[in-house]
């Protein structure tokens, strides 16, 4: 079985994001970029499926500027077999990403598609669901456990009330939650070997997808600064402050 994994290049989670002075977006110049953490979990899960003999090939796809090849090469170093880079400098929206991924799915014919549940930059949490709808495949989002058996995949999902287990017919779409696995680190020998793995570059036009944005960002602002709280000595003091200062009771 072939597994397709989508990875996204995002601002590193350790970096303090700053909004551009003109409020058009987040300032990404000279900022450290990395693979979206949920995508790392997706790659790890696919590689583990391969190590267990369930998957035969792991294909990793990324959509974005030339620099996104760094994230593909990281995934190859982590154990993926082949990379597909859909190169575009346009800021691609979730629906366009889903359409591009659908075109890659049609070409690669994977038995399982694993994505992160969301990317930590825009936090959309849409692509996996949209891709499932476009492909007509079953979807299991927020996975914390994935078990493939025969032509089915059993997925434990993290939902508000607890855990929910669903069974899907393959091919299917799975999006990863934080507790699915703990991703490994790419070793230097594997980084060196990854250079020899195939990496194919295509454009959105090659895949017949129009990626022109349909949404317009009006402005991006930093969250309002919270002023520091205070400590109260007793319940009485708390109640009195809530009554007289905050005036909420």
């Amino acid at each position, binding site marked *: 079985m072939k597994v397709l994994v989508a990875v996204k290049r995002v601002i590193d989670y350790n970096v303090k994001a700053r909004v551009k002075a003109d409020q058009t977006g987040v300032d990404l110049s000279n900022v*450290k970029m*990395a693979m979206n953490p949920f995508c790392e979990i997706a790659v790890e899960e696919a590689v583990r499926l391969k190590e267990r003999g369930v998957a035969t090939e792991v294909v990793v796809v990324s959509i974005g500027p030339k620099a996104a090849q760094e994230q593909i*090469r*990281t995934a190859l170093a982590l154990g993926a077999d082949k990379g597909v880079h859909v190169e575009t400098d346009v800021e691609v929206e979730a629906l366009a990403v889903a359409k591009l991924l659908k075109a890659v799915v049609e070409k690669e014919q994977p038995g399982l598609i694993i994505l992160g549940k969301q990317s930590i930059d825009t936090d959309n949490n849409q692509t996996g669901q949209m891709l499932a709808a476009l492909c007509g495949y079953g979807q299991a989002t927020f996975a914390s456990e994935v078990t493939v058996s025969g032509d089915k995949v059993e997925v434990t999902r993290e939902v508000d009330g607890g855990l929910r287990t669903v069974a899907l017919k393959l091919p299917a779409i799975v999006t990863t939650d934080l507790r699915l696995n703990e991703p490994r680190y*790419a070793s*230097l*020998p594997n*980084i*060196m070997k990854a250079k020899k793995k195939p990496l194919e570059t295509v454009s959105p036009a090659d895949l017949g997808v129009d990626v022109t944005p349909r949404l317009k960002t009006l402005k991006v602002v930093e969250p309002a600064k919270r002023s520091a709280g205070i400590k109260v000595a007793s319940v009485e003091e708390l109640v009195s402050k809530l009554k007289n200062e905050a005036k909420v009771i």
Partner: protein
Amino acid sequence: MESNGLHQADFDLFIKQVQKYVLEQLVPCEKEVFELNRVPEHIIIEMKEMGMFGVTTPEKYGGSGMNISQYIQFIEEISWAAPAFRAILSINTGMMTTAILKCGTEEQRVEWLPRLAAGEIACFGLTEPDSGSDAAALATRAVADGDEYVINGSKRYITNAPLADVALIMARTSSTNLAKHGHISAFLVPMSTSGVTVGKPDRKMGQAGAQIADIILDDVRVPRSALLGGVEGRGFMAAMQSIDSGRFSVAAISTGYAKRILASGLRYSMERKAFGETISNFQLIQAMLADSNAEIYAAECMLRDGTAKADRGQRVTTEAACAKMFASEMCGRVADRVVQIHGGAGYLAEYDAERFYRDVRVFRIYEGTTQIMQLLIAKAYASRVLRPVLTRDSYIQSRRITKPDRKWQVFK
């Protein structure tokens, strides 16, 4: 000879993985390292798997072939975490690999380099109870006996001795001292060899988790094939091969750790309030942060320049000594200022500042003390500056008037 080292894109990718690994795994593990006084096994295994023990080993011997600039940047990155983590791999990536590569036979390279790259831990046995940099006083003896050598003696302050799989032991193969330290030979001795015992780990001022101990050799028999290079008298040369990169490495850990220390000082100064505002608002605190930041930058510049020269094949003994001396002293000043920024809290074991202060003290001592560096730098400086004026005419004149050869003796 110019050294391009590891493919730059691969190196950049690896450095990002190292940064991630340091923040996510090594720093959270520090408390455990201090409590156990060793690096936990699972971390050592991960470091081996990531290829960290073979970064400097050439590709054909199972490593990744970083050049000196790359190696030093790697050390700087890993030195954000406690020094114990660097200590565990530094003998492999530094002295041991260089000695075997430069002075070993091809059989020894093929046998040992891939094992060291894969993470068999090495230690380097030069120092003795009565002999440090003074190689003439080396007392450990190796005596040929048929197809074997019999080694007797003891080694002191040996980094990683309690964990090591193999040691490179410097031993005297001639009872009289020979020119160019030709009486010293080097032997590859597996630590499991009968007659090798390791003393209790020494208790130190700082750097908890990095273990040093004595090695006692009592009638240790090794085959002739264990003699490094297959020829007697190469031991001192083997020890000297990596001395410049070893000094750059100490400069790199000083610089990397200084960044961590300063960041903790900055964070504290932005949280701690006095007179109604955070102390980072006070200009005297800002001065300490600024001075430290500028000095870290200076050390980084020295490292970049010195290692780039080394990779171009230039002789860098002076650059390495300058970088080692400046960066280690700088790190001491930064750690001292950060204790000062912490005020009373800086004196308490509860805060990292106190540990940083103890950890960095040894940077000014090992791999040659600041004073040894000063002698070396002054001597090299004098020879560099005095030499050009010694044209034939000025030489004759100077012999008469200023006697430069007598000046020379000051530095010898």
